[in-house]
């Protein structure tokens, strides 16, 4: 009797081990899928709203927008761009007339990658707004690229011909020059460089001014033609 009590319990079978893991995995999978489906509408709505707000900020006067991609040799409107497909956003006013493009760009800054969105009017060849979407620049110095209202305002009427140039603070005089932030030269120049690079990548593919894709209505059909 005593010897029996001292015997160690038998090790669980392999089947038991596998079953336990399988059940745990299954329950876990169900729970995760559940929360994903529940939160998906809210998350997509949040993302869309953030994007809309940024686009409206960099293109004054714009109240509607749509995604534009370059396929089959021309710019066209799509309800949903493919993953990793380069996209620009067309901004339209209340009447549905084209106003300008909101172009996203990204590149290395001083500390890490900077992601931004800038508004561009093809008719005037001008940048009319810039919004930093992501940045990890140095707080107090580099982060002025979005905290310093004066710097952001430099981008509200900026010519892109021949290209944007960042110059020392106070010396900017021409239409394509931006005053860099004192003590954050590299971050400022990075912003300018990102805009120039994004622009160079898209300028060949943008249609001639006045022939931009019209705003597609809710059913995905293009509005009455140009």
């Amino acid at each position, binding site marked *: 009797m005593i010897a029996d009590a001292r015997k160690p319990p038998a090790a669980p079978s392999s089947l038991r081990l596998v079953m336990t893991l399988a059940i745990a995995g299954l329950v*876990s*999978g169900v729970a*995760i*899928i559940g*929360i*994903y489906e529940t939160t998906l509408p809210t998350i997509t709505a949040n993302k869309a709203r953030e994007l809309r707000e940024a686009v409206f900020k960099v293109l004054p006067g714009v109240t509607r927008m749509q995604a534009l991609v370059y396929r089959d040799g021309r710019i066209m409107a799509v309800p949903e761009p493919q*993953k*990793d497909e380069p996209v620009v956003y067309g901004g339209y006013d209340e009447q549905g007339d084209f106003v300008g493009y909101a172009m996203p760009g*990204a*590149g*290395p800054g*001083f*500390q*890490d*990658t900077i992601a931004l969105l800038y508004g561009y009017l093809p008719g005037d060849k001008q940048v009319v707004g810039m919004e930093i979407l992501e940045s990890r620049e*140095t707080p107090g110095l580099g982060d002025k690229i979005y905290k310093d209202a004066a710097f952001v305002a430099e981008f509200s009427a900026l010519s892109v011909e021949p290209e944007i140039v960042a110059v020392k603070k106070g010396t900017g005089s021409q239409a394509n020059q931006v005053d860099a932030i004192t003590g954050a*030269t*590299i971050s400022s*120049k*990075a912003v300018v*460089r990102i805009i120039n690079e994004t622009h160079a990548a898209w300028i060949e593919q943008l249609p001639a001014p006045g022939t931009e894709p019209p705003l597609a209505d809710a059913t995905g059909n293009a509005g009455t033609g140009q």
Partner: protein
Amino acid sequence: MDNLPWIFISALLVNNFVLTYFLGLCPFLGVSNSLETSARLGLATTFVMLVTAVCAWVLNTYVLVHAPYLRLICFIVVIASTVQFIEMLIKKLSPALFRAMGIFLPLITTNCAILGLAIFATNRGYGFVEGIVYALGAGIGFTLALVLLAGLREESELSNIPKLIQGTAMNLIIAGILSMAFMGFAGLFSTS
């Protein structure tokens, strides 16, 4: 952002995984009392990072596009399996090394640096080559930070340290100064 040298140097120095992102602190503070162990652990971790980066890319590209919510669990399983596999490999190839590394090998599994690597690479959309370069930079950077702290700790054992500061407090303050030094690398690769 496809700039491979930038990715490598950034992970290695400018945004060092340990000193800037605070990843991998458990081994950083716990293991770094011996220079040799630190170097070995760093090497093993780098290898696990490389394997993880490749597996993460494969998972992201082929499997997780259909089920993004399973990402976390899949990554953890991959990391745990890789560490298990390396343990068996080292045990078979070099029992002496296995004995020397002891408990630290299984601990690589809970090293936030590896999971962090997988998550960062996913968030930044790195491809296959970029992932490998990133893992190399991160792993070597991790090893570098570990070796630096280990060297400093070994030196400090010969000095008279007030009893109050000894231990983790001192290591953290040294790490803070190291981190400040590494901040000097920012802007190393500025292309203006």
